[in-house]
Each structure stands twice: as structure tokens, then as C-alpha cells.
């Protein structure tokens, strides 16, 4: 085997602009409208402005708008939408990790010297179909052996949870800490699909029952609320409604430039410190049902490129498509030892004011998960935190300089880990 060289970019890349649409279920907006929102928000975020005619190319992630809205070949639709024609546009598909892969392609295009200024983005429009049809569409990202026996994505992560519980002694109750924390963070995020705390949702339900003259429910606390099958029904054991990210529409966008040009756009560029990507094998052939090999490989690549260790990462957005996933990812990324992630969540270590804030945006669970838009929306949150622009959800009492985004597709089939840094 040829000895592998240490992976470094041939020239460094800076993020000088970022934007996202609001995430949610929109009857009156389609993919183009949402991408336009994200693009215009990105343009407005560039401190010294950008001339759109200087953009060399667009790379964007989309999982399967083909299935969700019966339209393929989105590249020229988007390049025409934003006035990029005739410059190149490339769609990248990596299931729920599509746009983190698009980000990577944009970085590589600049690092190679081919491009100086690249737009990267993501989009997905899921809410026009029934829940059952969306579930079927998402199952396309699994392996045929999984979908043919009736596995769904909540089911795949439910099964992973049972393996994790059996191995480490965790319970459903431990996962509730993740849900409660995600809602608390999303409450402070105006772009989030569900910007309500669990307490807010409890109070709203009590108020609504009162107004309709129905018997008042009373829950002693958030845990009791989440244990109540009337409000938190089972989707795929042990995953219940509040363990699952929602069906969402949305788009995200970022502007990448070569390091030498960064000062023309902003005095506070955020640099790509490390990128890593990995692949994995699905439930039946993975080496461990409680860990994703693709994450471990992607993380190793990103850490090595950046010369950083897990302890150097001050906060992270991780791919919490389901509550249990957040626990696994924190362990795979090296933030906590295997089997200790659930205790860290229970002990509050991952809260906004904890030592290792995780998913300050509210995560996929509450911010929303328009699958192809998610990766760059995660990077958007990291970028906002690093620039101190996260408003009410800005990580308190820390001058954050290093953040990580972790984006996963399929049954751990595709993973991207990106480290961003403010120098």
C-alpha cells in the first residue's frame, strides 16, 4: 500500500457569508423561493458586499426533490434563479449529508486553484407529501436489505437505541434530556421550525384544553409530559414523536473565497480548519451498532488536517436526526467516551451554558431537517456563533474560536465533519 500523505488543502479557504431560509412546512413557498431567501440572506451577511458576477460556481446539496416534488435537474433552475448562468452548477447527493458534501466540493474547487469565489448551498422541499410518503422517500437513503423488511429511518435509529441501551444501561428517559435541551435552544432561534421549549408546548396544550372545555391535563414536569403517549406517541420504539426531527422545507447558502481574497469581503473571515468525509455500511454489516465508522473516519480526517483534538472543539452542531443519534455522534466525535454520552446529556454538559454546547441552533430536531439543506444550515450556525452573531442563543461567557459541524446521511452511509475557526 502506498503511504498516504497528510491531507492538507493546497490553499486555505474562508467563509465570508452565510444565510438560511426559515425552516418549516410552507404551503406558499417552493424550493426556488426558499433558495432565494437563503441566497439573499447570504448576500446581506457579507460585511463589505459581494458582486454576484464574481461568483465562479455553485455546488449544492439536494437529496431527493425528484421524489418529494417530482422535479430533477435542479442545477440550472438554481443558477438561473440567482443569475449565475452560464457558470457551472453541480448538484451533490449524499442523502441527509448532501449539502456538507457540497460545501466540501466548494472548498476543493477553491483549494485546487480552479475557482476563487464559490457559492455552496442546499435545499429540500418535503412537506408537499403525506407523512407516509415522506417516510417512504427517506427510506430510499437506507439499504435495500433494511427497507425490504420494513425498516424506516425512525426504525433504524430506534434499533440502534435498543442496542445502545442494552450495551450501556441507558434508558428512554436519558434521551429525553436531549429533546428538552434542543427545544430550549430552538426557543432562541428565529429560523427554527419549532422555537418553543417543552414547557411552552405543555402550557399551550393546557391553555387550549381549557378554552375548549376539555379536561385539563397536568404534567408535573417536562419528563412526565414526554412519558405521556397521548402527547408523545410511539413512532418506532423507542423513538417517539419528540425524539424525531420533523418533515421540513428549507434552504441554506454560504460564500467561500480563497484566503488571499477574504479581506475584500470582511474583516472577520471564518476559516475552514479541517474537512473530513467518510462512508459506512449500514446496520447488518457495520462493525458496531452503537457507533458510526463513517463519523469516526471523517472526524479523524478533519482533526488531523486542522491539527486539533476533540477537546479543542468548543461547541458543535451534530446530526441529531433522532435523539439517540446526538448521543452516538458526541461519542464518535471524541467529545465523550463510548457509553458516556447519555450521562453527559443528563448532567447538562451539552446545554448552551455547559462546558460543551451541542446543537445551539436547536438541532435537526427543532430547527428542522430539510435534509439536503441541513449540512450547510449546521455550518451557518457554527459561523454565526464564531462571529458572535447568534443573538439570544450566543454561547455565554466564552469567546468561541473553534466549532464543528457533523452531517450524517443514511444508515451512517455518508458522513462529513467540518471544523471552522476564527483566527
Amino acid at each position, binding site marked *: 500500500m502506498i503511504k498516504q500523505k497528510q491531507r492538507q488543502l493546497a490553499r486555505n479557504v474562508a467563509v465570508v457569508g452565510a444565510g438560511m431560509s426559515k425552516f418549516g412546512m410552507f404551503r406558499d413557498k417552493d424550493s426556488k423561493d426558499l433558495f432565494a431567501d437563503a441566497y439573499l440572506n447570504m448576500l446581506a451577511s457579507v460585511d463589505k458586499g459581494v458582486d454576484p458576477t464574481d461568483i465562479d460556481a455553485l455546488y449544492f446539496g439536494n437529496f431527493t426533490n425528484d421524489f418529494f416534488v417530482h422535479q430533477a435537474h435542479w442545477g440550472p433552475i438554481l443558477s438561473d434563479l440567482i443569475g449565475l448562468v452560464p457558470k457551472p452548477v453541480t448538484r451533490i447527493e449524499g442523502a441527509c449529508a448532501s449539502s456538507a458534501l457540497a460545501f466540501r466540493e466548494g472548498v476543493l474547487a477553491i483549494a485546487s486553484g480552479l475557482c476563487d469565489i464559490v457559492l455552496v448551498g442546499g435545499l429540500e422541499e418535503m412537506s408537499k407529501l403525506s407523512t407516509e410518503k415522506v*417516510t417512504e422517500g427517506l427510506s430510499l437513503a437506507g439499504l435495500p*436489505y433494511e427497507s*425490504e423488511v420494513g425498516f424506516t429511518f425512525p426504525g433504524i435509529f*430506534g*434499533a440502534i437505541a435498543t442496542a445502545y441501551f442494552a450495551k450501556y444501561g441507558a434508558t428512554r428517559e436519558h434521551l429525553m434530556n436531549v429533546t428538552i435541551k434542543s427545544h430550549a435552544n430552538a426557543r432562541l432561534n428565529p429560523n427554527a421550525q419549532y422555537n418553543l421549549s417543552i414547557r411552552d408546548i405543555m402550557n399551550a396544550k393546557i391553555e387550549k384544553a381549557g378554552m375548549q372545555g376539555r379536561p385539563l391535563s397536568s404534567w408535573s414536569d417536562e419528563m412526565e409530559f414526554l412519558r405521556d403517549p397521548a402527547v408523545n406517541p410511539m413512532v418506532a420504539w423507542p423513538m417517539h414523536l419528540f425524539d424525531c426531527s420533523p418533515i421540513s422545507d428549507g434552504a441554506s447558502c454560504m460564500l467561500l473565497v480563497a484566503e488571499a481574497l477574504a479581506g475584500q469581503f470582511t474583516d472577520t473571515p471564518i476559516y475552514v480548519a479541517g474537512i473530513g468525509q467518510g462512508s459506512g455500511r449500514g446496520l447488518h454489516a457495520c462493525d458496531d451498532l452503537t457507533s458510526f465508522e463513517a463519523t469516526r473516519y471523517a472526524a479523524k480526517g478533519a482533526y488531523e488536517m486542522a491539527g486539533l483534538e476533540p477537546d479543542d472543539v468548543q461547541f458543535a452542531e451534530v446530526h441529531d436526526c433522532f435523539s439517540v443519534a446526538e448521543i452516538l455522534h458526541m461519542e464518535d466525535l471524541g467529545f465523550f467516551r463510548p457509553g458516556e454520552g447519555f450521562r453527559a446529556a443528563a448532567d447538562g454538559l451539552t446545554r448552551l451554558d455547559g462546558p460543551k454546547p451541542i446543537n445551539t441552533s436547536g438541532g435537526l430536531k427543532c430547527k428542522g431537517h430539510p435534509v439536503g439543506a441541513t449540512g450547510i444550515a449546521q455550518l451557518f450556525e457554527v459561523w454565526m456563533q464564531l462571529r458572535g452573531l447568534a443573538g439570544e442563543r450566543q454561547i455565554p461567557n466564552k469567546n468561541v474560536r473553534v466549532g464543528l459541524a457533523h452531517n450524517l446521511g443514511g444508515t451512517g452511509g455518508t458522513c462529513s465533519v467540518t471544523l471552522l475557526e476564527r483566527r
Partner: protein
Amino acid sequence: MDERLFSDLSYQQFLDENKLMGSRCRACGSLSAPPRPICVDCHKSEMEWVQLSGSGRLSAYTCIAIGPPFMIEEGYDRKNPYCVGVVELDEGVRVDARIEGVNARQPETIQVGMPLHVRFLPLGEGEDARTCLAFEPAAAKA
């Protein structure tokens, strides 16, 4: 000797014949189910078929209340969930399968580690007929 391709199609054909088949690499002995045309351990492509015993243990499971359309057609829904899981066979490989003979309405009663035995589950009719890989508690087999 069976000349079928080491493919997903062959795996399904064998299931339709009520056989659970895997592939073994003649070069390094690595076993795979479903079968593989190329060994991912030694990268050779010299495979042979192996019939698997069909005995194993439950590695992970879930009981699904919101299934895909074909499961809804079978009568499964929020009130009538179904169980699927990952089964580690005695030979050391894992397969994805339906889990029958358990109470999917009471998922807590199902245990990771419980011994299971294969059951070939016929589904559909006519041109749509296929056999789905399923397992049931080993005790139910005896």
C-alpha cells in the same frame, strides 16, 4: 455447485427457496450475508456459497407504528405496530429481518440477546409474491 451470481437478486431467489445463503471468500474465509461479489477484507473475488444455519440472537430491534405503504397494506399501523430487527447469526454475521412471534404492542417485553430462529415469510401473491426474511423466538420453533 451453484453458479448464481453473488448478488442481491440471488440472495432473494434463495430466500424464495427457503434458504438463507451467504458468501464466503475462498482466499481469506471472510463470511458475508447478504452475499458479496468482492471480499471487503482481502479485496479478492473468489467466492463460494454457504448455507447459514438460521439460528442467532437479536442484536437490535424496533416496533414501527408508522410504516411504509407496503406495510400499511399488510394491515400495520399506529394501533398495530410491527417488529423488525438486526439478528446476529451463530456464524457471526448479521442480517436485517422481520421479527415475528413477539408482542410489538409491548416493545419492552422484547429483549436484545434473545435467541431466534429463521422463518421464511411468504408475502404477496402472483407476480408480487416474494419471501421476506423473518425470525421468531427460538422457543416457538421447538
